[in-house]
Every structure is written in structure tokens, then in C-alpha cells.
């Protein structure tokens, strides 16, 4: 109701409202394996406080989370585990590749290391750095929220494709 008593309208699309709600209620699953895990904890702690961006409710169960933060190295032994965890998460789900090791293998171009987790699962945001500074993580989180609002993430594209019947494979 506006001040003079007449009805006021605010028109939008339903998916825009849904995306707006989604981007402010991310439930991250911290998949911290090595050094980056420590910086991820620093980001969650009081000095940087990820809660300001609505992503502080850590869930260790993949069933309850929608943002997979892969912080650290994923090697040949770990890659199938990561795939399993990703598959267990319910749609829509987002993936943040945290740090150089997860994004590209970083300085470890060796026999045991997966050269980037995007060989295993689709990724929405890459955070550069070895390890990234907490400011970089927050920046990437904001970028991810922008992407979610615009509906450009992998999961949302997959959702649209599946509605249109053009989805070829799950990942």
C-alpha cells in the first residue's frame, strides 16, 4: 500500500525472486583438504566473517549443502571421493574452486595430482591464489552471488536445459 492508500505494485519474474533468495542463503560444504582449508577457516572467523554475505551456515553433510567449496589439493585418490560428494548434493548446487591446487594443480604438476577439479566436476567460480587471501574469497563469493542472480551458473543452466529437454548428460 502506498501512502495515499492506493495499491502499489512491484512486478518481477518468479525466477528472479527465487535467485535472489538463493544467493543470500548459501549453505557451504567446506571440502578443505590442505593449506587452503586454513585460509577458509580464517574467512569464516570473526576477522573476515563470511556471515555478512549470508554464507556462514556450514553444513558438513552434502545432503544439506548447496555450495561446495573445494579448498585444497585433489589427488588421484581423492578425486572419486569428491565426485561422490558432488553427486550426493541436491540441485541446485554450486562449486567454488578455492586456490591454485584445486583450480589447476598449481605448482604440483606431478603424478598424483589432478590438474584442476574441473576434470572431475563442473566449477562455477575459481579463486586464484596459493592460498587465496580471505578478501579474495569474499570477492569470489560476491561474484558467485551475481552469477546466481543472473542465472548463469552451471546448475541453473542445467536446470533450464532439463526443462527444455535438451540436457545431454548430468555433468
Amino acid at each position: 500500500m502506498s501512502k495515499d492508500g492506493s495499491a502499489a505494485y512491484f512486478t518481477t519474474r518468479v525466477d528472479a525472486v527465487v535467485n535472489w533468495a538463493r544467493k543470500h542463503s548459501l549453505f557451504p560444504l567446506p571440502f578443505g583438504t590442505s593449506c587452503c582449508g586454513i585460509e577458509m577457516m580464517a574467512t569464516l572467523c570473526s576477522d573476515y566473517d563470511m556471515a555478512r554475505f549470508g554464507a556462514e551456515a556450514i553444513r558438513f553433510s552434502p545432503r544439506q549443502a548447496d555450495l561446495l567449496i573445494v579448498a585444497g589439493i585433489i589427488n588421484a585418490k581423492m578425486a572419486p571421493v569428491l565426485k561422490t560428494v558432488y553427486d550426493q548434493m541436491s540441485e541446485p548446487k554450486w562449486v567454488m574452486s578455492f586456490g591454485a591446487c584445486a583450480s589447476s594443480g598449481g605448482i604440483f604438476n606431478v603424478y598424483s595430482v589432478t590438474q584442476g577439479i574441473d576434470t572431475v566436476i563442473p566449477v562455477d567460480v575459481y579463486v586464484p591464489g596459493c592460498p587465496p587471501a580471505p578478501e579474495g574469497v569474499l570477492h569470489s563469493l560476491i561474484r558467485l552471488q551475481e552469477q546466481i542472480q543472473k542465472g548463469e551458473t552451471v546448475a541453473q543452466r542445467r536446470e533450464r536445459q532439463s526443462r527444455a529437454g535438451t540436457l545431454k548428460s548430468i555433468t
Partner: protein
Amino acid sequence: MSIDQKTSENIMKNERLPDLGLPQGGHYSVDHDPDDLWGDSRVIVNIGPTHPAMHGALRMVAKINGETIEKSYCEFGYTHRAKEKLGENRTYHQFVVYTDRLNYCSALVNNVTYAMSVERLMGVQVPDRAVWIRMICCELARVIDHLICVGINAVDLGAFSFFLYGFHQREEAYTLIEKLCGARLTTSYTRIGGLMADAPEGWEKQVKDWVKRTRVVIDEMDALLTGNKIWCQRTIGVGIMDAKLCQAYSVTGPAVRAAGLNYDLRRDQPSMFYKDMEFDVPIAQNGDVFDRYLVRMEEIRQSLNIISQCCDRIKKGPIWADDKRVRIPEKDVVHNTMEGLIHHFKFFMTGFEVPPGEAYTTFEAPNGELGFYIVSKGGPAAHRMRIRGPSFYHFQTLTPVSDGLKIADMVGLLGSMNIIAGELDR
């Protein structure tokens, strides 16, 4: 010995502890487990590698009976990054970067130990100022590592605010380290024969101010947790690693001191200027989770003492060894002379030669004995670069100690062992 007697010995001059009416035990016998309601319905539980209590990426497969672990085995290697293989394929200078990623909670100690081991192979003496800065770095890293360890151990057992106190102080320490080398966690600060850069003007004074503030915070943290009844009940008498077990399994560091063995490489086999320092080596008796917590808290205080002594005694001077083989050429020489440019190019592209020989160089890292066993056969890369991480030997004790414990107590035990996947898997 009753629990009350144990407590009074454990507490080491701390008078704030309330009178605890603790139940007997802590180690639960499998045969008389009151929780064994299901008869023989034992199940296998896979804990990890992504379980929140399994720091990093460790995995424990346990056969449980109710809440009690009857038998278990551990798996790791989920963060194996082939650092030993890389040591054979990178030059000694390039490998500094990889040492950061060993125990990433205290990267500076790894940097210093690695630089020391290569300098020992080459017979290079670094100047006094560099040694003093390295010592400050080591102790800063030790404080950070212990803060993270006790903080996360407390979080695992449900005490969250304690962790926030520690992490704030740690952020301040990281600011100091950032001023030193521009990085927070993975510092790569040392070079063979010197340091990446000199400490900035007035850095020692800032460190001393930080030491003063940290002393207050440590006392606050102590007041918050040490006398806390819930904390004491969760930790006293739980996860006992006694002296015999520690010796058999090559356990070092705070864990072995908590078991009553008076052993610290900084004092017993002094390197750098540790023999001129005045510090105490804290010892506890029972080797349970609570003792390891107490030893770590006291070691933080001792490290702060060492840092302030170092800050008093450090003087201005060069930070590079007077040795042409290892010295990175000055930038004005590189940019202005042909020879300097060639030297620079050769230094970074082919690396310097290390004379043939082998040495096992150790230092007391926050977790225990960190060792680099380097075999050189001449040439710019090592023939064998063995890294002896303390976590590797500590983690081996998890199975014998945790068999018979409740799962929730195993979580506390694992947190107090401070297993860092980076140096466990290497």
C-alpha cells in the same frame, strides 16, 4: 591413582581449577561397556576422508560397538602431492616453495629447517641478523601453530569462542608475517644462504607489542578453558599416549613432553642461537588430551619469551651469507651490468650446485622433530629429498590409542595430536 590426584598433577600450578567430581575412567573397556545394548550388532563406520573431525583429509575405518571403537585402521594419502619426487626434479632454490606446503600452519619453520639443511650441505654460514630473524620467525610460527591446534581441538569438542580468541591473535601474527614477506600462510621467506628480504624498519618493535598483547590473550584463553568443567571432563584421562608408546612410535614434540619425557631439540641439540636463550621446556605427566593442551599453552608463553629476547638482541647488519654460490645477485647489478644479468639468469634457470654429500638435519617444529634427509650427488637438484614429518609418526599411534575409546573421544584425541595432512602425506 584417583582422578583427583591426577588432576592436581596435571594442572601445573594453575589454581583456578574447580573441584571436579569426575567419574572414574576415560579409557573404556570393551567388555564392560554399558552402552553395549545391541549385543553383537557391531557395524563398520567409515569416518572420513571428508569428515569435519578428520583434519584435512584423513580416513579412519572403525568397527564400532555402540559408541565404542573396537578396532580400526587408518588410511591417508588423500593429499599426497609428491613433494619428495619434486625435490629430485626441482633445483634447491625452487624447492623452498614446496616446503611451505608441508606443515602449512607453521610454514616458516619448514622454510628455516630446509634452508638450514641445504646450508649445512654447502657449509654456508648466514650472518647473525638473518639467524635472529629466522628464530623470531620460528617462534612466531610455533605460536600460530599451537593456537590453531588448541583452537580446533576445542571446536571439535564444542568450545567455539575459545577458537575465535585464538584466531584473532593469529590474524595479527599474520599481519606481522605479511609485513615481513608479503604472504600470509605460504611464506617462502628463507633463501639458501639468507632471507628473501630484510625485516622492515620498526618490525621488531611491532613484534614486541604483539607479544605483549598476545600474553594477555593467552591468559584470557587459559581462564576460559583450563578450569572449565566440561572441558576437563572431556579431556582428562582421555586418549592417553604414555611414555612407552611415545618411544615405540617415535613420537616427538608436545605429545612426547605431555607424556613426561623431557626432550626438546631446541634445548638438547641447539641450532641457531637457541643455546643463548632462556626458556623452559614444559612437561606434563599423563599424556592425555588435557596434558597436551596444557603443554601447548605453556609452550606458547615460552615462545613469546623467546621472541621478546630475540627482539632485544637483534642488531642491524647484512642478511645474506658472503658466498657467491648461493647469493642472489642484487637488482641494480642485474639491471646495469651484463655479468650480473648472466649470473641472475644462470642462478634462476640452472640453479647452483651443491657438493656431494648427505645430511639429516632436524629442528624442533611445533609438532615435533622435522627432518630433511638430503642426499646430494652434485648438481643443482637433490638425489633424494626425504622429509621426515612428525605427523607421519604421530598418526600411527591413533589406532592403538583410540581402540577402546568412544568415537567422540577419538575426535578429541585426533585434534590434540595435531595431524597436518600436508606433512603427513607430503
